[in-house]
């Protein structure tokens, strides 16, 4: 239990061990630990980000789906409207066509009637002459009675 040079030896040994620890033991260990801590923090961060991204993507997908549905509904509605319109148009044009045909037919009929009347008028004089000659048993001078006949025909 004497104080002697062991003290000096211990001081030197202590200094060497502390130097060694500071140089070769502490830095690699603490660096490895800090790096690992950083890696874990980064990993957690990335996981959080991924979760957020996933959520965003899901929201986006949902909204796109809804939009698509709305668009589809709109398109269908438009198509329906268009179809109705086409039908209406077709109806209208058919009605107009019918009208036109009816008008044309009426015109034709009128024309035929007029033509028939004309023919009839033309033939009335002949028939009248023939009738009259039958009645009178004589021939009638056409030229003599032409004026009378023409008057008759005009009255028809």
């Amino acid at each position, binding site marked *: 239990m004497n104080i002697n040079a062991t003290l000096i030896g*211990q001081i030197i040994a202590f200094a060497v061990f502390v130097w060694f620890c500071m140089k070769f033991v502490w830095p690699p260990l603490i660096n490895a630990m800090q790096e690992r801590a950083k890696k874990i923090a980064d990993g957690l961060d990335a996981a959080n980000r991924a979760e957020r991204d996933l959520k965003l993507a899901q929201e986006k997908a949902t909204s796109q789906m809804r939009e698509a549905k709305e668009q589809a509904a709109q398109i269908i509605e438009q198509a329906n409207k268009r179809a109705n319109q086409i039908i209406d148009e077709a109806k209208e044009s058919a009605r107009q066509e019918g009208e036109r045909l009816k008008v044309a037919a009426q015109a034709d009929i009128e024309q035929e009637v007029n033509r028939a009347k004309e023919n009839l008028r033309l033939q009335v004089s002949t028939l009248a002459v023939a009738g009259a000659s039958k009645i009178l048993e004589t021939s009638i001078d056409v030229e003599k009675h032409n004026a009378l006949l023409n008057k008759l025909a005009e009255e028809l």
Partner: protein
Amino acid sequence: MAGNSTEYIKHHLTNLTYGELPAGYERADGTVMAESSWTLAQTSQEAADMGFMALHLDSLGWSIGLGALIMFLFWRAAKKATTGIPTGFQNFVEILVEFVDNTVKEGFHGRNPIVAPLSLTIFCWVFMMNLMDLVPVDIIPKLFELGFSLAGGDPHHAYMKIVPSTDPNITMGLSLTVFAMMIYYSIRVKGIGGFMGELTLHPFNVKNPFIQALFVPVNFFLESIALIAKPISLALRLFGNMYAGEMIFILIALLFSAGLALGLLGGVLQWAWAVFHILVITLQAFIFMMLTIVYLSMAHEDH
């Protein structure tokens, strides 16, 4: 039996001392030194007569051996340290490093890269030195005696104290290094003036410079005692605890030679004391580290 016990205890408390004996010194075995030379002390009296120029080969050997062992293990773990999942010994070392790092962060508020490795070294080294206390007291000394007599020495002179921290040289060596660092960093951080001011302007401080001048010697006296008490208490606390613990192990070991019943009782007591001592050695290592951190933190604090 009584004389035997005294001898047994004395033998256990004597270091294996290697030092210089002067010419004309009469040794324990009756021979007289022809000229002064370095030799192993045969008795504790010889060891004392060697003066300061002597080495405790056992304390120093175990101390350096244990320190080297722990540094080697740490160095290997540090070399293989991966940032991936730590396994086995790396895990253990990292727990220690993290524990020390947290303690330093809590206790030390300056910026100094040496404090954390210093604390780790102190904690692990002191713990290892204390741990030798748990090796049954007679095993290694007996083996050493055997080896010593095989090598041609007198087994009565084969001293072997295996717990370095029961040697005040070892604990003083640690605490004086810490003390030197305290002084060094005090002066570096606060300047020589700041350091002297810390020693002379507290605890009595008055505005009037003339009255203050009267207080300076008083302050210096008080603060010097406070300063010097730090390394001494640091060393003696560890030494005292370990020495007392070792002493009790030795005293209990005396029971082994006192019959079967007492021997068995001694075995139980050794075991019980060892279990209790697990707490003591860890606590003392922690206290030494903690106080080192606190002292160095105080040295870094500028008022």
